[in-house]
């Protein structure tokens, strides 16, 4: 107990609070700029972090990461441009709400969901870190394969009429996702000998082009649209600009489920916030009472991805603290910052010197509160920032999209990609092809392929061949749960059919 207080005392200081505030503010702003990620900002700061005391530098970094997730969703909602890839799923329901004049409501829902997801996963980190870490470590390629296959199944049900258009879009996404090096043999696929394509299509230029630039093209092409009005219209009715208590309450189950999903996915190295957001979105739609509202401006459709992507930010510290394994680039940077400051993290830290860990916990919780407070400020600023004529905004989106994609890795090729995907998205919308299946095919199928093929490679080393997966407790547990789930659904459907209710 003394140790806990000692740790909290380290981070509950005025300097730390100030550092967190600066970090969260910087993170929110950076997150809102497409192409600029919190990871890049942290990389820039690291050479200077020697000159900070640890309890200024580390809280600032943590604040930055948390702030960036929410910042990214404001642009996703208002101008259909996800500030970071993790906010791509927020576009799906956030932007329709903004078009209905309910942009402020959408942003506030995103803020509540972000802070909820953050806090949930921080609590899991504090109380169940070692337990969750062991669960996460027992997940190997076999379990990842099942998990991603499940996610694909649940996302694949996202409706599109006619179905063949959805399937075509998804297959196109798969083909685009396959460009680059083969995950097992590392030979080149679909690169046409172009070294720029060897590492595959970058997620950021692809998302910015496909979601934001395509929308700009659409509006420019649409002769009936009035381009002289305000870029984003805000309703003057107060109930359209806030999230009411009943609305929030109806999202609570989704918030919990998505936070759990995000926490589990975040604890496993290699899946990440973007995947978590899409999986939570699909899961929310599958379990929703009003699935027909998804894609048209459902609050649950914002709550799910936002809670899940923020939950990742806390739980990817779990493998870091428990095993010294950074779950993603953000965690790797935080690890670097800890090390520069001479703080050991890893399995021995808990027993040898847990005080810095408690200080980290304190900083995390504080960062969540600061994120909530500053988030309201950002919503106000964002509303103000889009008060420009639409034609000006369209041009600025093109400039920001190009500059952001170039900034990421200094590649002109990425700007070409932005416009190619902008054109592709525009053509698809023009001919009534759904865009979401393409994103899912692009993001999830390569992960599925990588893990499935690793499983097949592993199978070749066992006498029992592919059946080796049944020696893995995590695989057996997951498969059992999946079978039970399918049986439950089938039972429910069968009962519904047996007793026809007046419900449509």
């Amino acid at each position, binding site marked *: 107990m003394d140790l806990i207080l000692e740790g909290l005392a380290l981070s509950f200081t005025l300097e730390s609070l100030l550092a967190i505030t600066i970090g969260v503010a910087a993170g929110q702003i950076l997150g809102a700029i497409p192409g600029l990620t919190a990871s*890049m900002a942290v990389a820039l700061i690291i050479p200077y972090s020697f000159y900070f005391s640890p309890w200024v530098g580390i809280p600032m970094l943590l604040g930055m990461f948390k702030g960036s997730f929410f910042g990214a969703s404001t642009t996703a909602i208002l101008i259909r441009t996800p500030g970071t890839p993790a906010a791509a799923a927020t576009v799906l329901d956030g932007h329709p709400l903004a078009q209905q004049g309910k942009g402020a409501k959408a942003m506030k829902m995103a803020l509540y969901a972000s802070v909820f997801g953050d806090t949930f996963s921080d609590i899991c980190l504090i109380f169940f870190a070692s337990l969750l870490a062991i669960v996460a470590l027992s997940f190997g390629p076999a379990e990842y394969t099942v998990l991603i296959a499940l996610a694909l199944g649940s996302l694949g049900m996202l409706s599109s009429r006619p179905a063949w258009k959805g399937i075509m879009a998804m297959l196109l996404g798969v083909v685009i996702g396959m460009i680059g090096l083969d995950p097992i043999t590392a030979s080149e696929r679909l690169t046409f000998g172009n070294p720029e394509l060897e590492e595959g299509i970058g997620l950021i230029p692809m998302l910015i082009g496909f979601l934001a630039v395509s929308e700009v093209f659409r509006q420019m092409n649409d002769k009936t649209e009035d381009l002289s009005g305000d870029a984003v219209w805000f309703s003057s009715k107060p109930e359209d600009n806030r999230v009411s208590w009943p609305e929030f309450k109806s999202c609570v189950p989704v918030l919990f489920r998505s936070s759990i999903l995000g926490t589990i996915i975040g604890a496993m190295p*290699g899946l990440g916030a973007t995947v978590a957001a899409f999986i939570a979105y699909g899961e929310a739609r599958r379990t929703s009472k009003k699935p027909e509202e998804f894609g048209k401006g459902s609050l649950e459709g914002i709550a799910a991805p936002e809670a899940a992507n923020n939950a990742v930010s806390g739980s990817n510290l779990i493998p870091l603290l428990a095993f010294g394994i950074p779950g993603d680039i953000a965690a*790797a940077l935080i690890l670097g910052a800890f090390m520069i400051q*001479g703080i050991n993290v890893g399995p021995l830290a808990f027993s040898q010197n847990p005080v810095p860990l408690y200080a980290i916990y304190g900083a995390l919780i504080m960062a969540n509160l600061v994120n909530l407070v500053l988030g309201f400020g950002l919503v106000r600023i964002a509303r103000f920032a889009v008060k420009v004529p639409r034609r000006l905004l369209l041009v600025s989106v093109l400039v920001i999209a190009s500059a952001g994609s170039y900034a990421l*890795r*200094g590649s002109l090729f990425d700007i070409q990609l932005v416009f190619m995907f902008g054109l592709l998205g525009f053509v698809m919308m023009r001919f009534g092809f759904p865009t979401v299946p393409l994103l899912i095919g692009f993001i999830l199928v390569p992960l599925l392929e990588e893990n499935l093929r690793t499983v097949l490679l592993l199978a070749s080393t*066992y006498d029992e061949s592919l059946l080796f997966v049944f020696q893995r407790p995590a695989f057996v547990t997951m498969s059992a749960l999946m079978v039970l789930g399918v049986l439950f659904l089938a039972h429910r459907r069968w009962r519904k059919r047996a007793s026809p209710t007046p419900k449509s």
Partner: protein
Amino acid sequence: MIRLLKSTVLALTVAALVPGAAMASGYPSKTITFICPYSAGGGGDTASRMIAKLAGDMMGVKINVENKTGGGATIGIGAVSKAKPDGYTVGFVSTSPITIRPHMMKAPYHPLKDLTYMSQFVASNQPLVVLKDSKFKTLKDVIDYAKANPGKLKWSTSVQRGGPHVAVEAMFKAEGAKATFIPFKGGSKVLAALLGGTIDFGMMSEGTKATLDGQTRILAEGTPNKNPVAPNAPTLIEAGYPIAPAIFFGVAGPAGLPKEVLDKWDAVMAKVVKSSEFVALASQRKWALDFAGHDAFTKIVHADYNAAKIAVAEIGMK
């Protein structure tokens, strides 16, 4: 009006003279671009930014880090090789894209002809690690198992087709043993796979800290530099195998850099690696500091390039 014209002429003359004057007083006189072929946040990027800051302070100029990624780091290095050889565009280089990958793919440069190797500042360790309670106690145990059970042993390294991958494949080839390489993206995922029981051994820099943390044991070292955490573990060369490539971080420029530039960087980098900031960063990241100036670094690169060429051809990796 005349006064304005006069001062303009004066200003222009001064402006025209300044570069000349600076040239005479020596390199460097303006901002240097430092190309990092890896994305922001990785080890290569952190090292680049640290070097840029410290070397820039010592030379009294600004050094801008530019991330030019892609093509397994060959795109950024290609940009360095095509820059004007005046010392104002240099870049970060590491083992894979210099001594290993060019034998397997078409790189946009020839490592021995198109680049000048200025200084090596880090030579990291690549320990071969097994779980703490693994049945393998020595490197020989691993080899014996692989021989007795062809293809059953599972292992990985942080970079597929990088230096350690080639070194271990060459070891199995020399023993006539067969094992299965399972690719993972990055050393931390290899460590996770090892701890989770998916693979039997790994070779990655993360193994050093994991051993200090009591999770793993080191059986051998995949570079020429003994691992400080396990001084008794032999390097692959000591164990009698064909290759143990140096895993280095260095600075390189385009071919044909003037001697003045090379001397300046040799002097500055020798000081940078001794600076307290860099020593702290390296010790926390478990980088072994191993400074080598222009001549020594060039020798290391040439020797490793040629050794890897033979090894890659022998094991038939392409």
